[in-house]
């Protein structure tokens, strides 16, 4: 298969970027999207050009490192997969493919298609944890967790933190990511104890980092490679409202 690629090239965070067009030929349809870019890069290197930088690591859809906004969709045209799991058979021979980095003020471009997603770590560090140290823990079966609770928590915890939700949202909002973590921990009895503090801290951090506001468009859910539901956003709103209304005044 042959393709025309229009790829965003930007030397570093400060440089001005632009789209550059490349033609690539003889790509097997069972080639993955990132393998196609590998081939392009090796061709560029052999020609003495700079290869295209993009993030990737596990290449099996779980680490959340790969990104890419492909023809108007984060992780490309296939549903419920990451870019590394996308295969060229999903495109038509001769297609033009436009590849852009995630666009969000909170995810500045580092180079070409690589962005800085440290903001997500900062949100977790603000409260996305259970405050326990190592050791001195009761037996794992000491707290009963009903199967449906465990399953709901797992559904939310499946988030890979790739940032596709932010990329897809017209407001560049991080609500799906934040709410997935808030939900995961709020649903479990272990996480309940500090649920109120957690949701407030995480939302405050999210706002501070410059993510947009959720307007319930649902684009995040539609594009999430792990199909995290916006029910989590509702849960977070509820948790937040409860926390704000219920919280005692700080002494």
């Amino acid at each position, binding site marked *: 298969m042959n393709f025309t690629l229009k790829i965003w090239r930007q030397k*570093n965070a400060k440089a001005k970027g632009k789209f550059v067009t490349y033609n690539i030929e003889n790509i*097997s349809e*069972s*080639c993955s999207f990132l*393998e196609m870019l*590998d*081939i392009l890069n*090796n061709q*560029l*290197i*052999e020609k003495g*050009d700079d*290869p295209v*930088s993009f*993030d*990737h*690591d*596990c*290449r*099996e859809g*779980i*680490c*959340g*490192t790969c990104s890419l906004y492909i023809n108007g969709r984060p992780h490309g045209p296939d549903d419920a997969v990451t870019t590394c*799991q996308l*295969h060229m058979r999903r495109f038509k021979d001769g297609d033009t493919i436009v590849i852009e980095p995630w666009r969000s003020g909170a995810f500045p471009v*580092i*180079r070409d298609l*690589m962005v*800085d*997603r*440290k903001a997500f*770590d900062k949100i*977790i*560090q603000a409260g*996305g*944890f*259970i*405050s*326990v*140290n*190592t*050791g001195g*823990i*009761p*037996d*794992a*079966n000491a707290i*009963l967790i*009903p*199967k449906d609770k*465990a*399953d709901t*928590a*797992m559904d939310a*915890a*499946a988030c890979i933190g790739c940032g596709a939700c932010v990329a897809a949202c017209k407001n560049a909002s991080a609500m799906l990511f934040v709410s997935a973590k808030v939900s*995961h921990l709020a649903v*479990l009895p*272990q996480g309940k104890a500090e649920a109120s503090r957690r949701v407030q801290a995480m939302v405050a951090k999210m706002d501070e980092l410059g993510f947009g506001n959720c307007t319930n468009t649902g684009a995040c859910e539609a594009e999430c490679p792990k199909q995290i539901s916006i029910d989590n956003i509702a849960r977070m709103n509820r948790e937040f409202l409860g926390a704000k209304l219920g919280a005692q005044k700080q002494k």
Partner: protein
Amino acid sequence: MTVLDSKTPQGALADKWNNYKDHIALVNPANKRKLDVIVVGTGLAGASAAASLGALGFKVKAFCYQDSSRRAHSIAAQGGINAAKNYQNDGDSVYRLFYDTIKGGDYRAREANVYRLAEVSGDIIDQSVANGVPFAREYGGLLDNRSFGGAQVSRTFYARGQTGQQLLLGAYSAMSYQVNKGNVEIFSRHEMLDVVIIDGRARGIIARNLVTGEIERYAAHAVVIATGGYGNVFFLSTNAMGSNGTAAWKAHKKGAYFANPCFTQIHPTCIPVHGDYQSKLTLMSESLRNDGRIWVPKRKEDVEALRNGKIKPKDIAEENRDYYLERRYPAFGNLVPRDVASRAAKERCDAGFGVGETGLAVFLDFSSAINRLGKKVVEERYGNLFQMYEKIVDENPYETPMMIYPAVHYTMGGLWVDYELQSTVKGLFVAGEANFSDHGANRLGASALMQGLADGYFVLPYTMQNYLADQISVPRFDTNRSEFDEAEKQVKTLIDKLMNVKGSQPVDHFHRQLGKIMWDKVGMARNKKGLEEAVKEIQALRAEFWKDVRIPGEINEVNPELEKAIRVADFLELGELMAMDALHREESCGGHFREEYQTPDGEALRQDENFMYVAAWEYKGEGKYEMYKEPLNYEFIEVKQRNYK
């Protein structure tokens, strides 16, 4: 030949760890704040170590090359984690887990370490649950278990097909808590390129900031290496693209011995290679072997017809199928350990019965499971794996059997450590897959996650405290010391040298070739001739690499090709040592199969009289190594021939 001392405590097996803990030196809370620890790697081992050391009050700096510490390769583990909880009342115990692990490792692991691992395994589950890991539950609210290869009890805890992800997120959030409290600082997109040694002790690292390209210096009182395995020496493996041996290799060059480098695990159920552009291999969880039956055609004409597309797998009649695992191992059938299953697949394909375009694949068939259980049950159990398979291969496993082939998956070898997980360099500790410790010559499924977390949560916090106790009077180190200058200079020289080769071939070109040599000659089956050739070929390839590699871009910017080149340069040395180690080990054991040493029916034949030891190699300059032995004395277990028939 010098013998290595593992510093294993005296006493009965079951008392060793408790005795040890009771007698270590401790550091008081006020002093802990004055002690710094560097943890390189934020996988299960690194993240749990950083979190636990931070919780104790040490000041921790954690490093990873990914853009976030949550993305370490542990995230990809699917199947589960073992623990001797005996929740199922099926006769499990600490001893049994210990026994299975030693036996699974073909009697090449250190008894005391493995026993300790089994002892703390239960605490790991408690800790993970407290951190919010949503393990699978029964309707009654109790934890659920599944069974895994090489064991007769159900002791594997799991979180859907994403156990590694959930455990890592648990450790990552525990670490995030410590970041919040100011005890841990994380340096992501940083690659460690050297250890700094001051007066014989590890006191810091040199790392490259992968965003700015700057070479940075970090000092500490002790260093932990938890950088995972080196399976990517084979180019194609189930490891993440960035997984590397660099940190361990640099430590090796600075004096840490490398143990059993040739012990690699080839996982039997991976999606076969489908083209020369392929960049990595995808694992299909071992759990599939619970219900899937593995076969190849009995008749060569069927193999031909399949390849020409004249017939479909389901057209082959039952009597013309060779369910070779069930045939050869009636007792364990499709659930034999990984090394056995992988070799059996290779045997069939080498004999010309392999299927698929390349003839390097066997069928993993669910039709009988679907008939027996119904499609719905099969979907519930394996739905996500089937979907993943279909996305990659574009075939529907409900209708036609999956095709699988073995692939490199895990490295049992690694930096040599004593009972305290300290390497031969003082103050340099090694945890997780990066050390050699607990799995002997073959790792059982669901035991790597257990080991990583055991090391980080429950072993290092004690052993490192013991080490740090007499360091309280040592002030923080100044990174302007000459030792840092020297180390930084070495790193910069290496990078300059690489950039200045200005050859004609991209890094991948060499990596692929190295992978081919390794796979063909240091892979699933090895022999003297092949290994000798491999050593020579790797040396030649290394020379060519240094003459002809082309790295575009600049040093002081994001440069993934440079990152790869540094890693591949190390693999080109490590690969050679692996071949040398395999050559020296004239026996077959676990994942190391020397064709010269097999039983009449093709099983691994150990040579216990001569090789019941850990081989630890000291670096003596490029291509030169000296070997030290750590004899393995089995005091508490009877050494037997493994038998899964």
